[in-house]
């Protein structure tokens, strides 16, 4: 794909949306009214795409690779969670999981829009859509926990519990990043992930302390998910360099808070941390389980079948 953000804007891509909203709505605090509902102000993926296309935000190669990792984590999780719509135990829970999926999709769009500013074998920038729809499985950098099948509701809640506590620690720390765009994305995302923590913790408590069956399923859910926890916290050369530069943090440095905070909820739910062997992982290097290919096939088929499709 050689479409640059500039040409995307001219043909009615994301840049167009961004300009339209900024120009027309005037949704700032100055025009806020007591009775009129406004979308409010927040850093949006469109703003990032525009900044990248204008050259006012440009990630270093390392930062772009890091943004790609976090964007892929969020994108794959959004795709998994979206599957729950119409399948959750109650309509209200459909919407709760759908909301969380959309939050994750928003984070993915921001990270990928930013990552696209530095990538491309032909030297051109790539859009969020280029990265989401036109990369193959080994080019994805997400870790395995995100691509695991949803399982039953308790398995999904177990994963949500783990990843939301992980993402909260990560984004909290990234708000201090020396990279202003990463810090900005994290500042927006951390509030949303805070709610995801609450949602999953509420369900862990209820399932674990509900009926015998719900407790059994919650215990099973954690047993399925826990082998994939370690991979989230593994350092490598990239995170070492970024941590040195102050742009990111070593994942291992998030582990103590994660263990403490998840431990508090698990103790209240009278659950044990499962005693399981960690998986070898490899997602950050593009080595994935058998599940990701199917997920991507479903996610990418429309964009690949009808390139440039929009609605």
């Amino acid at each position, binding site marked *: 794909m050689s479409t640059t953000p500039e040409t995307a804007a001219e043909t009615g891509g994301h840049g167009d949306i961004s300009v339209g909203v900024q120009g027309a709505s005037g949704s700032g605090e100055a025009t806020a009214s007591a*009775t009129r509902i406004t979308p409010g102000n927040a850093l949006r993926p469109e703003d990032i795409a525009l900044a990248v296309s204008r050259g006012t935000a440009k990630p270093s190669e390392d930062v772009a690779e890091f943004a790609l990792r976090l964007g892929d984590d969020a994108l794959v999780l959004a795709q998994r969670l979206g599957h729950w719509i119409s399948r959750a135990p109650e309509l*209200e829970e459909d919407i*709760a999981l759908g909301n969380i999926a959309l939050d994750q999709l928003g984070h993915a769009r921001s990270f990928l829009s930013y990552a696209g500013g530095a990538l491309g074998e032909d030297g051109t920038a790539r859009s969020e859509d280029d990265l989401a729809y036109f990369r193959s499985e080994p080019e994805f950098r997400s870790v395995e926990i995100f691509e695991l099948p949803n399982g039953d509701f308790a398995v999904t809640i177990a994963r949500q519990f783990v990843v939301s506590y992980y993402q909260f620690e990560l984004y909290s720390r990234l708000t201090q990043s020396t990279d202003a765009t990463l810090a900005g994305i994290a500042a927006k995302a951390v509030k949303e992930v805070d709610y995801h923590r609450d949602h999953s913790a509420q369900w862990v408590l209820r399932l674990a302390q509900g009926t015998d069956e719900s407790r059994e399923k919650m215990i099973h859910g954690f047993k399925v998910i826990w082998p994939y926890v370690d991979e989230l916290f593994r350092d490598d050369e990239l995170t070492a360099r970024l941590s040195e530069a102050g742009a990111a943090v070593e994942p291992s440095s998030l582990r103590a808070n994660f263990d403490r905070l998840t431990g508090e909820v698990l103790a209240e739910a009278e659950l044990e941390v499962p005693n399981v062997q960690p998986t070898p992982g490899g997602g950050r290097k593009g080595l994935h389980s058998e599940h990701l290919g199917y997920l991507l096939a479903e996610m990418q088929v429309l964009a690949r079948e009808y390139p440039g499709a929009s609605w």
Partner: protein
Amino acid sequence: MTTEPQAGNVWPIWEVFVRSSRGLSHVHAGSLHAPDAAMALRNARDLYTRRNEGVSIWVVPAEAIASSDPDAKGSFFESPQGKDYRHATYYTKSEGVKHL
């Protein structure tokens, strides 16, 4: 507040009131299902404040609300009709009264 789960594993209904802005009152937004008050608040947040509609939410078990009888409209609500002396505009202003 605890609300016991109903028979047949159906979550009870809660009525949701959302305050859109500081200084305004909570307004009935709709209803939802939830197993308890804590989850009702969260479901209300997800269902009724997705578009920046609120700064505060109340949830009330639907069964805790006593409502007027729709069939008693005549005796309940039509009695004040025609009683224009209950409105300030019925009266003429006395001479010399300021700031009215």
